[in-house]
């Protein structure tokens, strides 16, 4: 980062202030960490016994399998959500009012309720009506339905962000509605949406942890089980969170890099995903979001 902040180089007094504040805050931070660690140590949280299980291969395998389930869940849900999301987006832009209305109702309903509720609903409500699936599919179903509405909105924003001229040109060449969509609009929109989709994937990965609430053995649940078995709950949770952080951080970086590359290559901004990780929730207003703005 350059030395200019908020527009201007800092003068000598500014630099001095900066150095003083740096020193003070560094000391405060160090003190804070020190206190935290000593307190943890006092309560025996830094004991070797509590951390040793993680060097056993069985335990590591246990966690890694959890991670595998988590990733499987995320990928499956993502694919499913993309398929349904595309349908929804197209439906919302349809020319028939009824189709539009149904799609809008679907999207608004599933975006407005918590994912937890949806998953509980699938896991507890469906069996009551004779639909029995594996735990994996309960969570997956909830995730797919929920994310299809979020992705639907992203897709719609993507399609709408495309320059009108493209569609007009296509029509003037004599292409029909579906031809225009398939050959002109969607390919271009898809490119712009990739960073937003990857970003949503990060959120999706985090949401897989909700599977633990219905005892599906993904990463978080396994961390809990491990914690109870070895009586090292805190440590297990810390390990699990580290795994999540590493995976998500890598994905976020990827998303950011994709967006930068996109801007350079196609001179087209990406779809802005506000709140970067929490989903789009402002009704409809995002449809016109195009380009520019901060990459969140």
């Amino acid at each position, binding site marked *: 980062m350059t030395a200019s902040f908020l527009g201007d180089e800092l003068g000598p007094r500014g630099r001095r202030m900066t150095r003083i*504040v740096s020193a003070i805050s560094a000391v405060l931070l160090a003190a804070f960490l020190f206190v935290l660690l000593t307190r943890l140590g006092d*309560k025996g949280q830094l004991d070797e016994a509590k951390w040793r299980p993680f060097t056993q291969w069985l335990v590591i395998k246990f966690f890694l399998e959890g991670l595998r389930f988590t990733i499987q869940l995320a990928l499956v849900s993502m694919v499913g959500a993309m398929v349904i999301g595309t349908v929804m987006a197209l439906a919302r832009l349809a020319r028939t009012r009824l189709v539009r209305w149904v799609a809008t109702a679907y999207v608004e309903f599933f975006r407005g*309720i918590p994912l937890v*509720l949806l998953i509980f609903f699938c896991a507890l409500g469906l069996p009551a009506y004779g639909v029995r699936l594996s735990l994996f599919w309960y969570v997956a179903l909830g995730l797919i339905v929920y994310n299809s509405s979020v992705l639907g909105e992203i897709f719609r924003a993507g399609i709408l962000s495309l320059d009108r001229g493209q569609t007009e040109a296509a029509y003037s060449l004599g292409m029909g509605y579906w031809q225009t969509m398939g050959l002109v609009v969607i390919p271009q929109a898809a490119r712009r949406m990739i960073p937003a989709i990857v970003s949503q994937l990060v959120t999706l990965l985090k949401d897989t942890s909700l599977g633990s609430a219905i005892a599906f053995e993904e990463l978080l649940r396994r961390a809990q089980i491990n914690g109870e078995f070895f009586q090292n709950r805190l440590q297990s949770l810390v390990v699990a969170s580290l795994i999540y952080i590493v995976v998500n951080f890598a994905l976020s970086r990827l998303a950011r890099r994709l967006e930068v590359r996109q801007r350079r290559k196609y001179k087209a901004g990406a779809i802005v995903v506000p*709140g*970067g990780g929490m989903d789009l929730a402002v*009704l409809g207003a995002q449809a016109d979001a195009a380009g520019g703005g*901060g990459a969140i």
Partner: protein
Amino acid sequence: MRRTIELSVLSFILAFMIGIVAAACRVSPVPPLRWASATYIELVRNTPLLVLMFLMVFGLPSAGFTFSFYASAIIVLSVYTGTFVAETVRSGVNSVAKGQGEAARAVGLTFPQTLRLVVLPQALRTVVGPLGGIFIALLKNSGLAVVINVPELTAAANEVGTNTARFIPAFLGASVAYLMLTVPSGFFVTWLEHKVAIKR
């Protein structure tokens, strides 16, 4: 349901404050502050909320701090949401024209003053929309407080469902309740956005 609203509103206010402070640190010229807040944001943002909740409940007592379930929920929710607020505010700050900062320096304002009097007011107005989105997401995330025994809306739905074995109506009821909260919030945010929009 009342709990849900309480949780969300309190957490949001807290998150808002945390977020602004974190954002300010993130763009500050003081390296330790920048580093500390960047670490905080990246760490917390990339962990699932559930994991954070459990960390809070199982971890903190071990470190010597104990809070009630309710307070823990608020703390976790605000810390988590605070990161998103920080990111959004930061993008808002970045979107404020550089000329503003330069002009402020020219007039002689110090960095904190510039932030407070010039940059933030403009940044915040731009950022109202996404912040609203964050609030709505918070409303929904508060549902997770059920895992640490806070009597919240999702928990109630669960209970009613288990007691009456009529899950679908119970969940539909809860869904409607959530929708009653989120949809109007959405409208309110859009309206607010228009009111404070900076006329260009």
